[in-house]
């Protein structure tokens, strides 16, 4: 094996790094949803109500 005198020290340092790379902690989730280009159809929009419909003009307008 080709080594030099610093190798044992480096190996000790590297051993911890190797373990870290073998088993990294799980990253936080990155959540990104499809953007809506239409009006902000709030999630509840699916439940019952239509997207805003044109309102009839009232007499007092």
């Amino acid at each position: 094996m080709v080594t030099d005198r610093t190798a044992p020290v480096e190996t000790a340092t590297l051993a911890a790094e190797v373990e870290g790379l073998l088993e990294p902690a799980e990253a936080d989730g990155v959540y990104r949803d499809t953007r809506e280009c239409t009006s902000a159809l709030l999630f509840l929009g699916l439940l019952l109500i239509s997207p805003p419909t044109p309102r009839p003009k009232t007499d007092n307008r």
Partner: protein
Amino acid sequence: MAEQTQGAVPLSAVIADAATGVALALRGEGGPYALSGILRHNDALTPAAVRVLGADALAPYAMEHRGAPVGPEDEAVVRQALAAYPPGADASEVSRWTYRGLVEASHAFLPAGAQPWPAPPEAATGWVDSTPWPKLSHRVSQLAALALPKLAPGLAEQLTARTDDLSRGFVRAVRRRDWLQAAGLGRWLARLPDVAPTLGLDSGLAFVRQMGGADPRVALHVVAAQRFYGRGW
């Protein structure tokens, strides 16, 4: 990513370069494969990189039609890695299994040299049955390099019983945009026999490659799934 305090090139960059080289070889590009061709000889980081890549360092030798015979330097590098970074007495399952994977790959894919290869260390499988699926999935993704022909048959059999759970882990990982985890899981799922068709594993692997392929290890897992298990095209 682990911090690198010494030297100009961090270990993670050495690993990334090597992963690129392995993936290239698995695609049948870049000429005959040799570990010595993708990792610098006499570099202190080389054994560490081989230990982290694990069985994947030898993955191109698992291909049926490879170009050149295995060079003697490769054997020396693997022996160096095995000698320098054995799992300790209190090592984690991942550390044990990845080490075991490198030993098994040496047995399977490298010619028997003058010296015998070390015996594969014992590695337990009890955790496969008992670990909740999100944690199981994360761990199995860290063992992606063992998803190679002939390696860890016992583990593969145990994991078969958790195929649906690992598939859920794939969904979870993609949703979290954890491409490395998704690729590692997808690679294992490519090896398992009974993945639910509704998962869409083939398009899922292709999607992960597109989204996360900037990480060479992601690309490597997807290419391995294609090369060895015909999934992800």
